[in-house]
């Protein structure tokens, strides 16, 4: 049941991504709005998928990397859907829908059996779940911030070089990309901070001390410091949009390898 729902979610996200891309290529703003609806439908299916995981395995196995990646995609999609109309970011569906699809598709390749996870899970209590929930949400939003930053740099370069400035090759506007980068950073960093704090409580509960010096802890702390610098530069020092985009991309690349990469290679 979980597997089928997960596949259905990936399929809906894929359709949303295709519709959004066609809407961008034509260009046809109506298609962008329609793909927003499809993304919403995908998020609903995704929610049912986590509901089914809960039924099958008591709690969704968020400590497993594929489930955490899928969860991040869900949080990212919901975050974007809430923002899309309010912050005038409808055109960015062309970035968010493919990101959601790729994350869910990749996660789906290694989705674990929920009942097996339940039997093998370590006793972390509610801190464990709070840590994974908050850290995954933070990662999802900082991921969106990083991708928005990357597209900002591409679009910035194109407009500066004055090449291909006709309407055919059109990404979302620089303003929309910068706004998404800024909002995702403003919400993602506090979530990441809470994730780090709850992680320390989890370690304290299982190992009897707040800091045990594991690579995961060390790299997560460095990544948090990197983001603290990024956030300070952006919001306290009035960093320009292009520099903010560079910071967001660098910050996310570092965070990705510090958290996900480390987990994967370990």
């Amino acid at each position, binding site marked *: 049941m979980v597997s089928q729902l997960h596949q259905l979610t990936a399929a809906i996200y894929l359709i949303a991504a295709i519709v959004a891309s066609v809407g961008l290529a034509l260009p046809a703003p109506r298609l962008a709005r329609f793909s927003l609806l499809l993304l919403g439908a995908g998020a609903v299916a995704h929610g049912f998928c986590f509901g089914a995981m809960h039924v099958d395995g008591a709690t969704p196995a968020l400590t497993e990397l594929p489930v955490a990646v899928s969860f991040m995609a869900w949080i990212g999609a919901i975050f974007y859907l809430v923002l899309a109309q309010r912050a*005038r*970011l409808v*055109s960015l569906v062309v970035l968010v829908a493919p990101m959601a699809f790729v994350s869910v598709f990749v996660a789906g390749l290694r989705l674990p059996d929920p009942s097996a996870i339940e039997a093998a899970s370590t006793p972390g209590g509610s801190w464990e779940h709070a840590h994974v929930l908050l850290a995954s949400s933070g990662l999802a939003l900082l991921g969106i911030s990083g991708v928005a930053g990357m597209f900002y740099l591409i*679009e910035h370069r194109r*407009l*500066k070089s*004055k090449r291909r*400035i*006709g*309407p055919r090759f*059109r990404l*979302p*506007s*620089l*303003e*929309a990309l910068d*706004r998404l980068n800024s909002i995702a950073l403003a919400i993602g960093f506090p979530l990441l901070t809470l994730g780090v704090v709850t992680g320390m409580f989890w370690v304290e509960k299982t190992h009897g001390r707040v800091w045990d010096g594991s690579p995961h802890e060390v790299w997560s702390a460095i990544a948090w410091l990197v983001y603290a610098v990024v956030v300070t530069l952006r919001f306290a020092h*009035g*960093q*320009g*949009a*292009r*520099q903010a985009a560079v910071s967001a991309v660098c910050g996310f690349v570092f965070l990705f390898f510090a958290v996900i990469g480390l987990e994967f290679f370990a």
Partner: protein
Amino acid sequence: MKIILIGLNHRSAPLEVRERLAVDDVVPPLRKLLASDEIDEAVLISTCNRVEVVALTRSVEAARFRLRSFFSRDLDGGSPDDGSRLDDHLYEYNDVEAMRHVLRVSSALDSMVVGEAQILGQMKDAYRAAVECNASGPILNRLFQHAFTTAKRVRSETRIAERPVSVARVAVDLARQIFEDFVDKRAVLIGAGEMIEAALSALRSAGIESVAVANRTPERAAELAVRFEATAHGLDELPRLLSEADVVLSCIGGDRPILTCELIEAALRRRQHRPIFLIDIGVPRNAEPEVGALDNVFLYDIDDLSAVSDQNAEQRRRESVRAEAVVAEEQQRFDGWFTALRAVPTIKHLRSRVEEIRRSEVDKALAKLEMSESEREQVESLTRSIVNKILHAPLSRLRREAEREEGMAYLETARVLFGLDDEPEAPSASRTAASDDPENE
């Protein structure tokens, strides 16, 4: 009935002639035109680029004479001649060519800027005015409705109107790649010439609300500001204005660039490095070239914009070939309907002739027989049914053939075979054509 179109446009007549003939209210001249016997229906289109009359007439010669005198006397109002005769500027199209011209005009293929959107609205206004004063009848109604449908097809099936071609519109289009919308944006325009006026208009129609005009002579800026609900400033206020501006468009004379690196850097600092879209269409350039290298400044000059404009114009030219094919298809469709109208008098005459025979034969028979009311009704119904069934095949064939050029032979044969020319003909087409529409029968 014949369709005739006489008029002038931006290609056939200079601006001063077009200005002289253009009218704001088309109703009074239309009423005057309809008072003459030669014109059965008419629509007058009057814009800054064209003045045309489309008319329906029974005599092309008489209508031509009347329409030409309408242009020279009623519209030109006996203005002193500018050396060239008005007749030299007028063009004339008849029937198929006139239909095609109306469809091309509505689809903006005959416009100064091919694919522009304004002409369709102007044609709709002209048509509405003609309908209100009963100048347009069934045939021109049909022609104009067909023209509007054709224009819609052209816009939806081709990319003729997709890309802007004026420098001001190209600039606004580029601004959309930087800013998501213009609701909370501020524009500063430097200069007060024609280009600035065009840009003001383009920015206003794009939805930008806050606009400031800065000029060396603030009085000239104030004139523009009043017309476009902007604010007027002198050039000494530029440092402050630039720090608030998201879009800056400059077109002002001078030996040295007024938009220096120093000035823009200071503005960027004050606006916390939010992007500035800077359009420099001044010749010589108003901005130092180094300004374009600054972060968060997007500098485009007249050459950059002209290059985009040329690409877009080329795209419109390519698309106009496809648009012409749509027009040709729609013109053929309308022509088929219009040609088929000539069968209407023959068909009506034939029907009334056969009905007369049926009536008289039934009356004779009923006079000899003693029948109840219901039996009489049955006989009536039976004979009517027989007549309809006999006539159905030949009349359908006549309608079909009438749409073709060779169809006239069929109509003549029918008239001879049924002896229709021996009697006076039924009332002819035009204003009764809607009810006799061959497609409706």
